[in-house]
């Protein structure tokens, strides 16, 4: 197996072509019959290069979370192709994916349920380094973990605490530190600022701006304003299809698809406009 890595920024870290995914619809299942299959992703094209941040937006049920999971090969696509660092991983087996997993990381929406409540913060952040054999021993891993905590602006005093002792914003910083621990080439962040207050959200966005140069970042969010604040490009999803994709500034200034226009018109900006709400 090749261990070649692409460091050339113009070569995409991740490239999806015509990505399709069908999943069994368990709600529609009947006894002794095969569950009907739902098409969740219906031909997605996406590519993201190092240092590039791409926003995936859409409403609930649009397939954006499923897309994130498929990009990480947590689901096996039914059709299309998926390449990571130039290698075709569309149908790669887990043992082939395993060494690549260090270089593709994820940050989750709810840090409380994605951080082990019985582990100390330093061990949570150190875990990827140990799992992927990137350090000699646990003490080196912990040392690195403390450096990572510093990077996400958490003081040393947090290292020995447990997740429940932290605020939502602090926990999300831990999630970010863990994701960048193994110096990944790809980070998928799924709704990671949704549960946060505005002031905390702004701090996390600032932090993401600092780390985004080092990796390819796929930022999944229902919040188009947050995406504008962070992403170079945006991809608008609706019912498993990309309806519009382009540079964030251009798409938001001149949306071409009706659905994008609808979404933007539905966002209440914090300024007075008696006509915005309209009448039914």
């Amino acid at each position, binding site marked *: 197996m090749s261990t070649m890595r692409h460091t050339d920024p113009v070569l995409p870290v991740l490239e999806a072509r015509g990505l399709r995914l069908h999943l069994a619809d368990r709600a529609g299942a009947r006894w002794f019959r095969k569950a009907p299959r739902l098409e969740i992703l219906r031909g997605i094209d996406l590519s993201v290069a190092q240092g590039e941040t791409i926003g995936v937006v859409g*409403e*609930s049920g649009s397939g954006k979370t499923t897309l994130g999971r498929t990009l990480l090969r947590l689901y096996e696509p039914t059709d299309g192709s998926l390449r990571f660092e130039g290698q075709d991983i569309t149908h790669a087996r887990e043992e082939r994916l395993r060494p690549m997993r260090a270089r593709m990381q994820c940050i989750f929406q709810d840090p409380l349920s994605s951080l082990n409540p019985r582990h100390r913060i330093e061990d949570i952040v150190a875990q990827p380094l140990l799992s992927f054999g990137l350090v000699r021993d646990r003490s080196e891993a912990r040392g690195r973990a403390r450096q990572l905590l510093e990077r996400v602006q958490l003081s040393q005093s947090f290292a020995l605490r447990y997740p429940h002792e932290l605020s*939502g914003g602090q926990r999300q910083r831990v999630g970010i530190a863990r994701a960048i621990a193994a110096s990944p080439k790809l980070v998928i962040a799924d709704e990671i600022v949704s549960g946060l*207050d*505005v*002031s905390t*959200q*702004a*701090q996390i*966005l*600032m932090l993401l*701006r600092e780390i985004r140069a080092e990796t390819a970042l796929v930022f999944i969010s*229902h*919040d*188009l*304003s*947050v*995406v*504008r*604040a*962070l992403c170079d490009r945006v991809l608008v999803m609706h019912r498993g299809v990309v309806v519009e994709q382009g540079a964030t*500034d251009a798409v*938001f200034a001149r949306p071409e698809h009706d659905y994008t226009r*609808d*979404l*933007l018109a*539905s*966002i*209440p*900006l*914090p*300024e*007075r*406009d008696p006509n*915005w*709400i*309209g*009448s*039914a």
Partner: protein
Amino acid sequence: MTPPVLLDIDGLRVSVGGRPVLRDVSLQVRSGEIAGLVGESGAGKTMAGRAVLGLLPDAARVLSGEIRFDGTDLLSLKARAREALLGRDIALIPQNPMTALNPVARIGTQIVDGLRMHLGLDRNGARARAVELLQAVHLPDPESLLRRFPHELSGGMRQRVLIASAFSCRPRLVIADEPTTALDVTVQKQCLRLIRELQRQHATAVLFVTHDLGVVAKLCDSVAVMHGGRILEFRSGDDIFRAPRHPYTRALLAATPRFDRPGDTLVPVSAEVLARLQEEVDVYDAAH
């Protein structure tokens, strides 16, 4: 002519387990007006709404202040008299449309029961009224909807049902606690429009609790900005958004991402602003 003040919260101080959560909260809502109560988590905004409803947690103590509803102090009313107002004169639109409805009761039962209890309608009368209410919130095929269970409805439909039942007894005051936070933006806009429409029709006073400055800007006639259990400024929506006076209000606005502005215009709330607020809270607590 300005309509009369219907809800008058005056110098309300509440502590939970000895810890102050509301510090001298004063706020008025006029009939036919939507007042926004906006703040970040822990600001005390939900607590203020619950105090009006008489639904404070067991460990909470009202230390001083009054909550006057149409001139009557709710806090000095007997429990029975206070409960009689709930659902009929004062209604709630809860935050989570997934948990606020009884999962094992049909939609019809849940609306009809309220109507029979509060308005004394008979079964058929209540059923007919329920159909009207569901029509008023623009839900299709209300007759068959009454026979459905909550899990058969989408989040947006459930929230419409809750809006319909909050307005079902023509309440004079509605407390809306983050009613659209769990919804997609397009559905949120429909629900906000609906609340505005019903509230205008019946000249209902609404206390709208939210963390979303955007929602407040579009919906509310007056706005109270809360932090640390205190109201930092309470003015008309036009004034607050044209010329925010309090440094915290200005900081919140600057920290709110906007799709119409480039990302580098975003400024997190500064440590100075937060330190100043904490200092003021400490001074207040020392004096009480």
